[in-house]
């Protein structure tokens, strides 16, 4: 998402899926499962289509199209939460920042009565597997369309479909992480690790590895620090991410000024 310069679209989608999640909760009663993921997937695609319609048919600026779409969908989500409160077990705060602390108690108990451990673990593993498979299978296609979409179109790649598939992955990931970290903080985990990694390396494989490592680091550190300070776990994760990000930015740009004195700050090649 970062390489495609769609970080804010990712932000928008993670907000836009809220109505889908609420409706999924509503439809499935207290069992939170497939309906939620389907609901979110549909909303993710719907949001992408609305943004496209606004930009291409109604001729609204791109940034305004994104802003209007996600705020409307998120607002509808909040309204639905309020209206369906009698049946939907979500509250507004939970939507925002989730509550990982309760998840270990939310166990998956099979029909035979065995406890398989926290439900979220399985959802998370499934998410990881699917996203990894997606990226692995379409690695070169994603690369090519992110670097030079026109070239992709010219050699016959279905660039539009690939884009939509990627947005669906974002929706799906948002939903999977939703219960753990809430809708809004998902964005931080989507956007901050890659941005930080990009400050340190320009090679794609290192970029991906570093992003994953940072993600893991932020999650673990954030969790334990939240425990120490007794605050929101998700919020703390993001705070940790923020410190790492800003620290990296600081380190990677100030040094040359000190060492080389009059050297100007890093600027991308002007060509």
């Amino acid at each position, binding site marked *: 998402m970062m390489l495609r310069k769609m970080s804010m679209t990712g932000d928008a989608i993670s907000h836009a899926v809220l109505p889908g999640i609420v409706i999924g909760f509503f439809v499935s009663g207290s069992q939170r499962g497939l309906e939620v993921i389907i609901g979110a997937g549909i909303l993710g695609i719907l949001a992408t289509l609305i943004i496209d319609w606004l930009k291409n048919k109604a001729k609204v*600026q791109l940034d305004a199209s994104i802003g209007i779409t996600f705020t409307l969908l998120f607002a509808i989500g909040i309204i639905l939460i309020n209206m369906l409160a009698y049946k939907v077990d979500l509250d507004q705060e939970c939507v925002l920042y989730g509550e990982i602390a309760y998840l270990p108690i939310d166990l998956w108990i099979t029909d035979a009565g065995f406890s398989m451990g926290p439900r979220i673990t399985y959802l998370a593993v499934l998410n990881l597997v699917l996203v990894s498979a997606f990226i692995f299978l379409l690695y070169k296609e994603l690369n090519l369309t992110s670097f030079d979409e026109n070239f992709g179109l010219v050699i016959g790649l279905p660039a539009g479909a690939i884009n939509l598939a990627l947005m669906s992955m974002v929706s799906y990931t948002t939903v999977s992480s939703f219960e753990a970290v809430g809708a809004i*903080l998902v964005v931080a985990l989507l956007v901050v690790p890659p941005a930080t990694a990009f400050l340190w390396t320009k090679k794609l494989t290192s970029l991906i590895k570093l992003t994953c490592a940072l993600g893991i680091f932020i999650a673990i550190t954030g969790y334990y620090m939240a425990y120490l300070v007794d605050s929101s776990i998700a919020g703390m994760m993001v705070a940790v991410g923020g410190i790492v*990000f800003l620290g990296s930015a600081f380190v990677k740009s100030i040094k040359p000024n000190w060492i080389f004195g009059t050297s100007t700050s890093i600027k991308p090649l002007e060509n």
Partner: protein
Amino acid sequence: MSDFVYFFTFQDSSIAFVVIGITLLGIGSAYVGTYSFLDKKALLGDAISHAVLPGICLGFMLAGEKNPIYIVTGAFLSGALATFLTSWLKSNTRLSDDAIIASILSIFFGFGVVLLTVIQKSGNPEMAGLNQFIFGNAIAILEEDLYIYGGLAILIIITLTAFRKEFSMLVFNADFGKSIGYPMGAIRLVFNVLMILAVVIGIQAIGVVLMAALLIAPGAAARFWTDKLGKLLLIAGAFSAVSGILGTYVSFVIPQMPTGPWVVVFLSLFAFASFLFAPKKGVLSRFIARRYYLKKTHQDHLLKLIYHGLESGKNSFPIEEIYESFPYRKRQTKHTIDELLKTDLLTLNQGLIDFTSKGKSEAKRIVRLHRLWELYLNEYMNIAPDHVHDSAEKLEHILTPELEALLENRLNYPKLDPHQEAIPRDNDEL
């Protein structure tokens, strides 16, 4: 119904205050947001809205209560820091704009959420009010708060109105401003300050997450109604104020609903209505304009058909033959003929169609334009005679009299087109 009357006749002075507050704050946000929208930096407002949260919490923590001065100051410093970091990252790293904004947005918000939960755990009873900053609760705006927030809103509106020239230059072409000696850096700074202030007061009503809507939607919607900046700002302000009041009304009637989402819903209604129905730019208007255009082209084609018939020696045109010339479009053809009869270009006599003199003149004009354009394409652009027809067929409907004169002049009042057909003029006899 009685709620409605109660609310809108302002019998309760606190409601009156709220409405005034919402109106001012809505207009202030719309003004700032519109400039931001024109600057194509609409999502920056989204980032700043999220970024003020930690400042608000810190202000609260220091004051121990919901003291507006502490809160505004805290929010302001927090927003300022975010804005500063955004520009700093832009000039000092290779990260793209969207990655920077998204990162700052979520990081600051994360810090804010940490502080928020710390406050929650501390059990301070005042804390319930803080939630209003996340989702907005206009009804909870107290009279004392109003003086500060209202005052700030008025400050924003006045500054933007008084310095319209400077701010327009900032968003349209800052480099130009700099080159003619305006202090663009300072103007940018003032603008950022106003933006942060607008956010701080706006989130009372709409909350942090949805604040972007209050900044973006009014301007985006108003843009479809006018091309003039002054009118644009007024319309944006109006949309914003009305949405704010309606949203507040809903909060009033259904107390457990936060205001924010409802304001966004009304704003979005205005926005989509504008995108669809605004004259000239709206989707529907463009559709109607196109339909009207197609109707007119059909009329032109029909007139041409009859004229071509006259050219090849026919002198009677039964209406049935005309229907046959446009297969599968009998109903449309019938409408077209009716229209042409009404505008006195054709006559219908015992099933036979004929020109009025006005009609013949008009038909000649269209055929003339068609053939002149074909000649132009052929002579000036080296286009083969068998390729000029399509283009002429489309353009004959829009060439103006001025262009016609230019064409005649350029081509030297020609007699024949590339297909050796005569170019008809009003004084000819067929």
